[in-house]
């Protein structure tokens, strides 16, 4: 069995999962209007960590060298997660998986952080920095697979433990809001001019966010948790490189395979944490996949109204919230959602509700037609 033993979120809503969860209970959002000409010529909404809060949290942390914004976020996240367990990060039996779409992409600008070596733009170098900092002897595994990276990383970590390669795997991930990424999404005209509205009839695009998040999986149970990895899979739409399949093909296949691995049917799912980016096409596609699997009544949430779309961190941030929901048997209402605006009748969580959550599903989709699914259960 593979257990979820600890987790953390570093975001504008807090630097621990508990802080973030409490923020979500109050329907807080990290999304605000950002006016920074270095990031984009016009103001735009995004969820960004206040730099001085990040710096303050990082003071007092032993550092021989300079770290980038993303590296600080990741280090803080891993540190906090580790503090909740007694696993040995220096052991050969502890693996590290890093999930990120663009890493230190801001280093492409030669004027940005000139004291940092440019080769830290290489994701493998970023991974090494993490393992070196924490004294882990293994080569880090870096997953860079668009917005499904986080969920895929959890599936990979579970596989590594099941194979007997490691006893514990620290899955960490993060992405920053950068000029590169903001400009790119703006050119796709896929950003909402306001905070995003997942599954809503007035939804008009996504909001970007930055975060780091860490989840530790282990073959050993702890007293604090009985949540296990039950199944996970990925699948490609084979349709278009940026638009999702109109029939939710890849999403459907990924969920089906995850259910098969879990040895359960769709009727066993108590709650779904969808990808829910609030673009017209993504949310519609997910509703089709959910409908095809007959999960119309299953309460489904998106947390992107609180965190924005945190790209490589998304799968981890949102799974950490899902894990907490399961521990509390509580489903948080989807911030930004008011009225259903997809063609299929699905049950979006519109009020924070108690429910016995024994088996839950996490969905993710990303550019390149990628889709992933993960099933978590109480042991």
């Amino acid at each position, binding site marked *: 069995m593979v257990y979820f033993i600890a987790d953390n979120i570093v975001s504008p809503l807090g630097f621990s999962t508990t802080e973030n969860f409490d923020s979500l209970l109050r329907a807080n959002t990290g999304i605000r209007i950002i006016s920074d000409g270095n990031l984009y010529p016009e103001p735009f909404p995004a969820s960004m960590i206040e730099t001085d809060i990040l710096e303050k949290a990082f003071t007092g942390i032993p550092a021989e060298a300079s770290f980038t914004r993303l590296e600080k976020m990741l280090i803080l996240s891993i540190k906090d997660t580790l503090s909740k367990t007694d696993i040995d990060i220096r052991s050969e039996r502890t693996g590290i998986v890093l999930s990120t779409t663009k890493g230190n992409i801001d280093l492409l600008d030669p004027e940005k952080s000139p004291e940092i070596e440019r080769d830290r733009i290489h994701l493998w170098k970023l991974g090494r920095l993490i393992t070196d900092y924490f004294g882990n002897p293994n080569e880090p595994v870096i997953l860079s697979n668009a917005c499904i990276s986080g969920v895929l990383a959890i599936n990979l970590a579970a596989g590594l433990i099941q194979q007997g390669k490691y006893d514990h795997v620290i899955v960490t991930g993060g992405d920053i809001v950068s000029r590169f990424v903001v400009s790119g999404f703006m*050119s*796709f*005209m896929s950003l909402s001019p306001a905070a995003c509205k997942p599954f809503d009839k007035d939804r008009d695009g996504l909001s970007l966010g930055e975060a780091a998040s860490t989840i530790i999986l282990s073959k050993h149970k702890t007293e604090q948790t009985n949540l296990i990895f039950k199944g996970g899979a990925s699948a490609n739409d084979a349709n*278009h*490189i*940026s*638009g999702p399949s109109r029939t939710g093909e890849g999403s459907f296949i990924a969920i089906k395979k995850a259910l098969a691995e879990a040895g359960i049917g769709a009727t066993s799912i108590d709650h779904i944490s969808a990808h829910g980016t609030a673009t017209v096409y993504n949310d519609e596609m997910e509703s089709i996949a959910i409908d095809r699997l007959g999960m119309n009544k299953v309460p489904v949430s998106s947390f992107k109204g609180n965190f924005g779309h945190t790209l490589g961190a998304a799968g981890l941030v949102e799974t950490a919230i899902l894990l907490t929901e399961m521990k509390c048997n509580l489903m948080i209402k989807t911030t930004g959602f008011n009225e259903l605006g997809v063609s299929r009748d699905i049950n979006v969580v519109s009020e924070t509700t108690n429910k016995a959550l024994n088996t839950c599903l996490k969905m993710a989709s990303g550019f390149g037609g990628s889709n992933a699914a993960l099933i978590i259960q109480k042991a």
Partner: protein
Amino acid sequence: MEELMQKLKEQIIEQLNLEDMEPDDIGVDDPLFGDDGLGLDSIDALELIVLLEKEYGIKIENPKDGQKIFFSIRTMAEFIEEHKK
């Protein structure tokens, strides 16, 4: 207008990487999108929006407007003429 349409053809071939295509291969009234025409897709539509801004200083706020404007070379040229005044 003729000159503009010719220039547009060249710019589109360049901007959208329509390799092995010559301006003469594109009829001014041929539909640019869909299987009957040049077979351009949604990313091409976004590139055309960039082209309009970069080369002609015209900004399109709503991508949905693109469907009418980018129907053919002629509709594009007409739109540009109208908005350049």
